[in-house]
C-alpha cells in the first residue's frame, strides 16, 4: 500500500559503487535501489489517477520524474555478490586488524558426482579384476542371480562374473565393494499397521528367598552325604527291607508317647536352671563364699549350711547311708531305712544332685529298709545295697526299671540279720565285679556278680572269742559276734577291719578265714564305724555309741587318740584332702570336725546343725573334691555344709621351701603326730 513508503526518509545518492548483482539477484537489486534512494512521497493519489496507461503495482516505489529519468548503469561482473567484501584479519606482526582484499569469489551452484572411471586411472587399476576376468567367466551368469553391488546397469555383465569369481576363487583378494554403488530407494506405499494382541495366562509365580549361612551349606552337604549312603545301602542288598518291616511295627507305639518323651532332657535342664535361680545365693556361696571371720578365729572353723535335700515320701525314714559318686561329684546316694527295731517298713534309695536340690534324680523304693550302700569306684552306675532283712542287691543306674539288677535271696545265701555295711572290691580274676558285706549274723560274705547271678562266698565268721574253724563236733560253741561295720585297707587289698557289736575291732585278711590278724578292744558298746585313713597306711578311726571316737595305729593295741563327744557318735569320716582332718556326727545333732594337726585334743569345729531335741544325725560324708560335707539325720533330711577355710588347712610352707604337695605330705603329717605319741609309749611300755 502506498502509505508505508512515506516513512522512508533517508537519502542515499550515488551509491552505484555497490556492485550490481548478477542474474539471480534482479529482484534484490530493485529492492536495494529502493532503499538507497530517497523517496519523496508526493501525493500518491494524484499519480495513481494519472497512471492510466501504466499499471502500477500498488507497492511500487514512488519516484519523481527526475529520478525516473535518471539512468543507472548496470555492470555485469563475475563477482560473487554473496562473497564478503570486508574481511578483516588480525595480523600478529603488525598487531592490528588488516583488511584482506582478495576474497574468493567462487560460488558453487550444483554438484553431481558421477561413477565413471577412466580406465587408465589408478582407480581402474585397483579395480583391475575387471580387465582380467572379463572374457572367461560368462557362464556362471545364470547361477548367480544376486548381484552384489546393487543397481548399476552399465557394468552389469562385468559385475556378475566378478562376483562369481570372487566367490568361487578365493585365491583372489576379495574386493568387497567394487562398485561404489549408490542406493536409490523408493518408498512404497506402507500398509497401515494394526495391532493384534493376545494375552495368555501368566505362569504361576512364587517368590523364593533363602539365606546362605555357614550352617545351611553344612546341612546341605550332610544331606547329600546321607543320600549317597542310602543309595549305597539300597544297592547292597534286600536285607534292609526286613528290618524296615519290624521298625514299622514299633513306630505306631511310639507316636502316642512321642510328645512327652521328646523333651525329657529339656525339662530336666529347665528344672535345674530354675532351681539354680531359686537357690542362686546358695549356689554362689557354695562356689565362692569363704568365711572371712576364720582369720580372726585362730583355729576354729565353721560349717556354712548350703542346700537341704528332702523328699516327701522319705519323711518317716532315717538316713542310713550316704555315698558320693566318684565320677559325677555332684551326685550322691542316700539310703533310707530305719534303725528302730520295731518300726521296720519299706525303705528307699535316692540319688540327689547338688544341681537340683528340690527333687531326687533317681528314686528306688525298696521293700525293706536300706541299711548301707556303696557306689562302685569305677563303674559308677553300679550300686550295692544292703537291707535290713539281710538281703543284698545291686542296682544299676543305667537300667530304666526300679528293680535291682541282682538280688540275693534266702537260697543264695543272704544274711539272716541286717546287713550293716557293703563295700565294692576290685574285680576278681575273671573280671567279675564283687563286693563284700558284713552283717549282725557274724558273717563277712563276698558276693560275685557272675552273669545274672550273685554268687556268695563266706569269707570269715566272726566269733566272740576269736575266729574258730568249724569243728565237726562243735566242741566250742561258737558264739557269733555281730559285725556292724567294716572297712578295707586303701592300699593293702586283703586287709580289712571289722567292728562288732561287742565293741571289738578285728583286723582280718581275706585269705585267712579262720583267724583274725589282730583284735582291738575298742569300745564298750557297738562299733558303729571303722574307717582307714586315706593317706596314712597305718591309721584308722573308729566310733561307737559309747560317746567316743578313737584313732588307732593298727600295729599298736591301744588307741592313739581318744575323743569323748558327750553323745553317741553316729558316724565318722576322714576327709579326702587331709590326713589329719575328720568329721564325726552325734545324736545330739552336732557335727564335730577335728584337725589333729591343729588341735590334738579338741574339735576345731563343733556345730549344732539340727534341732537339738528332735533329730539325730546319723551319717556324714565328705565330697571328693568340693569342700562340702553332707549330713544325714533320722528325719530323712540330708543337709549339705560348706567347710570354712580353717577346716581345710594345709601345712604351711617354711620360708624358702616349696610347698610340698601330694599324699606323701599327708602321710608325713600323720607320722609326726604318731611318733610323738609312740615315743612316750615306747618309753613307758
Amino acid at each position, binding site marked *: 500500500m502506498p502509505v508505508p513508503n512515506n516513512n522512508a526518509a533517508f537519502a542515499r545518492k550515488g551509491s552505484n559503487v555497490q556492485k550490481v548483482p548478477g542474474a539471480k539477484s534482479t529482484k534484490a537489486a530493485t529492492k536495494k535501489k529502493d532503499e538507497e534512494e530517497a523517496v519523496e512521497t508526493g501525493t500518491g493519489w494524484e499519480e495513481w489517477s494519472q497512471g492510466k496507461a501504466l499499471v502500477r503495482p500498488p507497492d511500487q516505489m514512488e519516484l519523481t520524474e527526475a529520478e525516473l529519468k535518471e539512468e543507472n548503469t548496470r555492470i555485469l561482473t563475475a563477482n560473487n555478490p554473496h562473497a564478503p567484501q570486508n574481511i578483516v584479519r588480525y595480523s600478529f606482526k603488525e598487531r592490528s586488524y588488516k583488511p584482506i582484499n582478495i576474497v574468493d569469489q567462487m560460488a558453487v551452484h550444483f554438484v553431481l558426482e558421477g561413477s565413471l572411471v577412466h580406465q587408465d586411472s589408478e582407480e581402474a587399476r585397483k579395480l583391475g579384476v575387471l580387465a582380467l576376468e572379463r572374457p572367461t567367466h560368462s557362464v556362471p551368469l545364470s547361477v548367480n542371480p544376486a548381484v552384489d553391488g546393487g543397481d548399476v546397469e552399465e557394468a552389469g555383465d562385468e559385475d556378475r562374473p566378478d562376483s562369481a569369481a570372487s566367490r568361487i576363487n578365493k585365491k583372489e583378494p576379495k574386493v568387497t565393494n567394487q562398485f561404489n554403488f549408490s542406493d536409490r530407494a523408493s518408498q512404497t506405499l506402507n500398509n497401515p499397521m494394526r495391532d493384534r494382541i493376545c494375552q495368555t495366562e501368566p505362569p504361576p509365580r512364587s517368590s523364593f528367598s533363602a539365606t546362605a549361612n555357614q550352617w545351611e551349606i553344612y546341612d546341605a552337604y550332610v544331606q547329600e552325604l546321607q543320600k549317597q549312603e542310602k543309595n549305597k545301602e539300597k544297592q547292597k542288598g534286600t536285607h534292609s527291607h526286613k528290618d524296615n518291616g519290624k521298625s514299622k511295627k514299633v513306630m505306631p507305639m511310639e507316636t502316642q508317647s512321642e510328645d*512327652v518323651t521328646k523333651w*525329657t532332657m*529339656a525339662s530336666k535342664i*529347665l528344672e535345674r536352671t530354675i532351681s539354680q535361680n531359686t537357690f*542362686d*545365693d546358695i549356689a554362689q556361696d557354695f562356689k565362692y563364699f569363704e568365711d572371712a571371720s576364720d582369720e580372726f578365729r585362730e583355729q576354729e572353723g*565353721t560349717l*556354712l549350711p548350703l542346700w537341704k535335700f528332702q523328699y516327701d515320701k522319705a519323711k518317716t525314714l532315717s538316713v542310713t547311708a550316704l555315698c558320693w559318686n566318684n565320677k559325677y561329684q555332684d551326685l550322691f546316694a542316700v539310703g533310707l531305712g530305719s534303725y528302730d527295731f520295731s518300726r521296720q517298713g519299706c525303705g528307699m534309695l535316692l540319688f540327689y544332685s547338688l544341681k537340683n536340690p528340690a527333687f531326687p534324680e533317681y528314686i528306688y523304693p525298696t521293700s525293706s529298709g536300706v541299711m548301707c550302700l556303696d557306689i562302685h569306684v569305677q563303674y559308677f552306675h553300679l550300686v550295692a545295697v544292703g537291707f535290713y532283712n539281710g538281703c543284698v542287691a545291686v542296682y544299676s543306674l543305667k537300667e530304666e526299671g526300679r528293680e535291682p539288677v541282682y538280688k540275693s535271696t534266702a537260697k543264695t545265701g543272704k544274711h539272716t540279720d541286717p546287713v550293716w555295711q557293703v563295700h565294692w572290691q576290685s574285680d576278681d580274676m575273671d573280671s567279675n565285679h564283687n563286693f563284700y558285706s558284713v552283717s549282725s549274723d557274724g558273717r563277712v560274705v563276698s558276693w560275685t556278680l557272675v552273669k545274672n547271678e550273685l554268687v556268695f562266698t563266706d569269707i570269715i565268721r566272726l566269733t566272740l572269742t576269736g575266729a574258730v574253724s568249724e569243728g565237726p563236733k562243735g566242741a566250742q560253741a561258737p558264739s557269733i559276734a555281730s559285725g556292724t561295720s567294716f572297712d578295707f585297707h586303701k592300699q593293702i587289698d586283703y586287709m580289712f577291719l571289722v567292728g562288732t557289736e561287742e565293741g571289738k575291732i578285728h583286723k582280718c585278711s581275706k585269705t585267712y578265714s579262720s583267724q583274725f590278724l589282730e583284735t582291738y578292744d575298742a569300745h564298750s558298746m557297738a562299733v558303729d564305724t571303722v574307717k582307714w585313713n586315706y593317706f596314712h597306711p597305718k591309721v584308722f578311726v573308729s566310733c561307737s555309741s559309747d560317746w567316743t571316737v578313737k584313732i588307732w595305729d593298727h600295729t599298736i593295741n591301744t588307741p592313739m587318740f581318744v575323743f569323748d563327744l558327750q553323745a553317741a557318735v553316729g558316724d565318722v569320716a576322714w576327709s579326702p584332702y587331709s590326713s589329719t582332718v575328720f568329721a564325726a556326727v552325734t545324736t545330739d545333732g552336732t557335727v564335730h570336725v577335728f584337725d589333729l594337726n591343729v588341735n590334738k585334743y579338741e574339735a576345731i569345729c563343733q556345730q549344732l546343725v539340727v534341732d537339738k531335741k528332735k533329730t539325730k544325725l546319723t551319717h556324714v560324708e565328705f565330697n571328693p573334691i568340693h569342700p562340702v560335707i553332707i549330713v544325714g539325720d533320722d528325719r530323712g533330711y540330708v543337709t549339705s555344709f560348706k567347710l570354712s577355710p580353717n577346716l581345710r588347712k594345709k601345712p604351711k610352707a617354711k620360708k624358702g621351701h616349696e610347698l610340698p604337695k601330694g599324699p606323701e605330705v599327708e602321710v608325713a603329717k600323720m607320722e609326726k603326730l604318731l611318733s610323738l605319741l609312740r615315743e612316750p609309749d615306747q618309753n613307758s611300755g
Partner: protein
Amino acid sequence: MFLVEQGEEVEAQMKRIEATKGVIGTLVVDPDGVPIRSTLDQSMTLQYAGQLRQLVILARSAVRDIDPQNDLSALRVRSKSNEIIVVTENNYLVIGIQKLPEPDVSMSRETGSPLGIEYPGWLQKEGSDGY
C-alpha cells in the same frame, strides 16, 4: 513300657516345675511352633511362643554360623523382673518364666553369716562353746 514310664516322669517333672515357688509359667512348643502345653492364658502363650521362637531361630543361626557342627541347647533371657529360660531339644522348646528373687543387700560380716542367707528355723548356728 519304659517310654510310658518316662512320659510319666516328665509329666511329674513339669508339674513340679510349675509348682515351684517363683515360677510364673511354663510352656512347651513343638517344632511347628504350636504351643502344646502351657500354664499361661491363651494370649500370653501365643505371644511367648511366637516371640521366643523367632529368638531361638536367630540364636541358633548365630551359633551354627560360627560352627555348623554346634547347635543351640539353651537360651536364657534375664530382664529386670523375670528370667525366661528356653531349653531346646529335638526342635521342641521348653520354656519357663521365673520371677527373679529379690536381691538381698544386707551383708553382715561380723557374725560370719554370708549375704543375708535365710536360715531355716531348725538351724541354729552356735559357735564353738566355751573356747
